[in-house]
């Protein structure tokens, strides 16, 4: 695994005080928070800085981390030294699982990683796990209460429309006969029903972390992220398609074939339609109790005047149509 320079991640000196570390984290969190940020890789950067802050804000974790020395460089191959963690109250790093642990990590999304092109976020890094035991699925389960897990899963718009499946790797702690705990990975296939929308949650009962002392397991929640589509813009359950039409189709009306998520449909463009006008295909958005609609926004595209015939037609229109597109601009201050 690769060494992580947590000071570098937060952009602070090794001698930085707790206030400086907190300020640096807040500043960076504001910039890279996935709900707010437009920065590329904001999600990955934010996770990195959360992990760094998890260590540097905690005096014990920070002291243990500092014990590794200042000579490590980010990205260097790393293994925890044999005496790692001795003298500190946290334990539970690799090979040390089962020890008393406090100040456990609170990963935003934990316990699941998606395959099949999904984008579920994962736990803190292996580097963190090797030192501090990861964001243990036992974290926060004091008193035997189970802990829910959260993951994010990306689907494209077609998948959101017709439903899909995702294969997820779940990491769960299992108590070994000697009382120690190890993280085991198992795989589940999740059926995502048709009609999921942005931010919607799917609950998988009992697929979270097990409760201590035989308490029921927590649930796994998958938050759906619908990826942007090349043609359709999604808003709630409605989709909008920008649809090019020829001037004569808009002027005279026409029957056209329009792509929808459920396949092409015939649509009538009324005579006298204008560029920007929206037509509605009821119920052609995402399915649901109240299915969404598809809006078809017309875009009148002019044929190029790149041949003598085309130029002649435009000339004829100019001479015969008596058309002034700027008629409503005439008035007080401008005479075009």
């Amino acid at each position, binding site marked *: 695994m690769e060494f992580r320079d947590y000071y570098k991640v937060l952009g602070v000196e090794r001698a930085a005080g707790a206030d400086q570390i907190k300020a640096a984290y*807040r500043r960076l*969190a*504001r910039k890279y*928070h996935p*709900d*707010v940020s437009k920065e590329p890789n904001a999600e990955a950067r*934010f996770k990195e800085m*959360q992990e760094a802050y998890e260590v540097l804000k905690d005096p014990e974790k920070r002291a243990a981390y500092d014990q590794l020395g200042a000579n490590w460089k980010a990205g260097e191959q790393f293994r925890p030294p044999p005496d790692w963690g001795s003298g500190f109250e946290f334990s539970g790093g690799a090979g040390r699982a089962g020890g008393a642990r406090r100040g456990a990590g609170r990963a*935003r999304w934990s316990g699941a990683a998606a395959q099949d092109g999904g984008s579920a976020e994962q736990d803190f890094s292996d580097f963190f796990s090797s030192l501090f035991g990861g964001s243990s699925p036992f974290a926060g389960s004091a008193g035997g209460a189970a802990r*829910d897990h959260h993951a994010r899963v990306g689907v494209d718009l077609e998948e959101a429309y017709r439903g899909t499946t995702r*294969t997820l*790797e779940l990491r769960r702690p299992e108590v070994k006969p000697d009382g120690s705990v190890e993280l*085991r*990975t*198992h*795989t*589940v*296939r*999740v*059926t*995502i*029903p048709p*009609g*999921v929308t*942005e*931010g*919607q*949650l*799917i*609950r*998988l*009962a*009992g*697929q979270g972390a097990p409760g201590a002392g035989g308490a029921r397991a927590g649930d796994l*929640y998958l*938050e759906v992220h619908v990826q942007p589509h090349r043609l359709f*813009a999604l*808003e709630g359950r409605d989709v*909008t398609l*920008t649809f*090019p039409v020829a001037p004569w189709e808009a002027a005279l009306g026409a029957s056209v074939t329009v792509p929808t998520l459920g396949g092409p449909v015939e649509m009538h463009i009324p005579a006298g339609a204008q*560029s*920007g006008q929206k037509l509605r295909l009821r119920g052609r958005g995402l399915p*649901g*109790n*109240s299915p969404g609609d598809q809006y078809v*926004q017309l*875009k009148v595209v002019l044929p190029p005047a790149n041949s003598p015939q085309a130029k002649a037609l435009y000339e004829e229109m100019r001479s015969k149509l008596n058309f002034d597109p700027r008629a409503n601009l005439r008035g007080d201050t401008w005479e075009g």
Partner: protein
Amino acid sequence: MGGVIQGFEAHLLSEGDWIGATEICQLCWLDLGAVMELAELGVVAPREALPGEWQIPATALPRLRVIGRLMRDLGVNVSGAALALELLEAQRELERRIRTLERLASDH
């Protein structure tokens, strides 16, 4: 790695689902006071299913989870997070409109 598990219960939280306030708190990293404050601010419209038993529509979950993350990760308070959410939504709506207009204005 273990084998593929199939057939476990998967439920899409959607229109028509109501979720207890306590569960909402767990799902959205909020405390009950924050949820009540959000109700006062009009961000969510809870119902009292039984005396003292408040429920929130599942359709409010995406917004509440953003608010919960903003509060937890950025240290803002309830009204600040609610305001940020509204501004983020307004920003996204404007961006959506800009994209639509750009498509209308583009050559293809």
